[in-house]
């Protein structure tokens, strides 16, 4: 009897999903009319299915960004990608910036594959510095604000870099860091700040970062250059 009820419940569950074979479904439907308990269980399952579907809720607005240098090499095709949560669309969940912490393209560790952000001005680029041993660990973006984004990089020996960008002509935010590099590309001012990084290493890293933001850069050359910054790199202090 219990086995029969178990079997009935499984079939009712499948009937609710429209997954019973036609003949089996018709036979069960005929029983529903005559068996009050069976009918009650069917109503419960139908209500449950409909209500579970309601719990899915709304998906936060997500946008897939396209890589800047597609298809140059297979390894370089391990492209970083960003899902963006467009500002102002989060029904209060968004308050101007969001962090993507330590979760960006873990497999893209070998190539300087820059990231573009769909909700920021065209051409806005987040360089990858993995070849220099610096992992992109955080990204806060604020379309329309100053800065437009802040990207944070961390190395294994305490090295920290922050990259920011804002529209040329906007009031620059106050800078911090022991080493600074500014450059302008496509109407955007980029600022790279390091904390306690030796100057020679910072120069190489900043060259690589700057080059990635420029259209037509040679990614393989950038990668070779960034690798130089990773050779015998001392810890960062400060």
């Amino acid at each position, binding site marked *: 009897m219990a086995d029969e009820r178990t079997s009935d419940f499984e079939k009712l569950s499948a009937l609710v999903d429209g997954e019973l074979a036609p003949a089996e479904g018709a036979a069960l439907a005929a029983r529903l009319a005559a068996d009050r308990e069976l009918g009650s269980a069917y109503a419960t399952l139908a209500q449950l299915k409909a209500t*579970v579907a309601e719990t899915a809720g709304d998906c936060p607005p997500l946008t897939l960004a396209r890589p800047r240098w597609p298809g140059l090499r297979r390894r370089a095709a391990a492209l970083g990608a960003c899902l963006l949560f467009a500002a102002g669309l989060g029904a209060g969940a968004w308050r101007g910036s969001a962090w993507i912490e330590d979760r960006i393209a873990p497999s893209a560790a070998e190539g300087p594959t820059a990231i573009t952000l769909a909700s920021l001005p065209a051409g806005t680029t987040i360089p990858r510095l993995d070849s220099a041993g610096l992992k992109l660990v955080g990204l806060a973006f604020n379309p329309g604000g100053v800065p437009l984004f802040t990207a944070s990089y961390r190395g294994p020996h305490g090295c920290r870099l922050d990259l920011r960008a804002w529209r040329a002509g906007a009031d620059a935010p106050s800078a911090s860091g022991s080493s600074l590099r500014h450059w302008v590309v496509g109407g955007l001012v980029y600022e790279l700040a390091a904390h306690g990084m030796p100057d020679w290493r910072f120069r190489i890293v900043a060259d690589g970062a700057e080059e990635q933001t420029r259209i037509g850069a040679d990614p393989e050359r950038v990668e070779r250059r960034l690798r130089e910054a990773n050779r015998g790199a001392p810890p960062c202090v400060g």
Partner: protein
Amino acid sequence: MARDRHAGLTPLLPRLFAFARTMLGDADAARDLVQEAAARALAAARVPDEAAAYRAWMFRIVRNAALDEIRRRREPAVVDRPPIDLWRYDEVRIAKITVEQGLAALGPAHREIISLIDIAGFSYADAAGLLGVPVGTVMSRLARAREALIAAIDASAVRPMKSRHG
């Protein structure tokens, strides 16, 4: 002209997010997880060509990441609930809030199968392919999961207010 290998990704995002949210019970964690899964997919050297295969592949990535996260969290064991009378259940108790609480109280396997069928909209055959089990197993697993969900709803202290008519 180069074909976009990931043209099917954007339309899948809401269902991937909903699936991850049910699995993890946490919208922020689900958002991060889907974000990471999409990044992995976009970085993949080989991508399924056919739409259904692509969908299954993406869900597999999200599922594996969700299961890793659940293992990492070491969720407490699920409490066995006394059986309830499914044949005379008052479905008024089934409301969005009680279902959400009930889902959160289920084990991952139950959350997974309910989410795949009722939230992600998989057919039994597609879910069976994704999980690597026979269709009959999906059917029985889903029935058990629904039974557990009703029991969890019944055990909850929350009761939806009955609507008044007239």
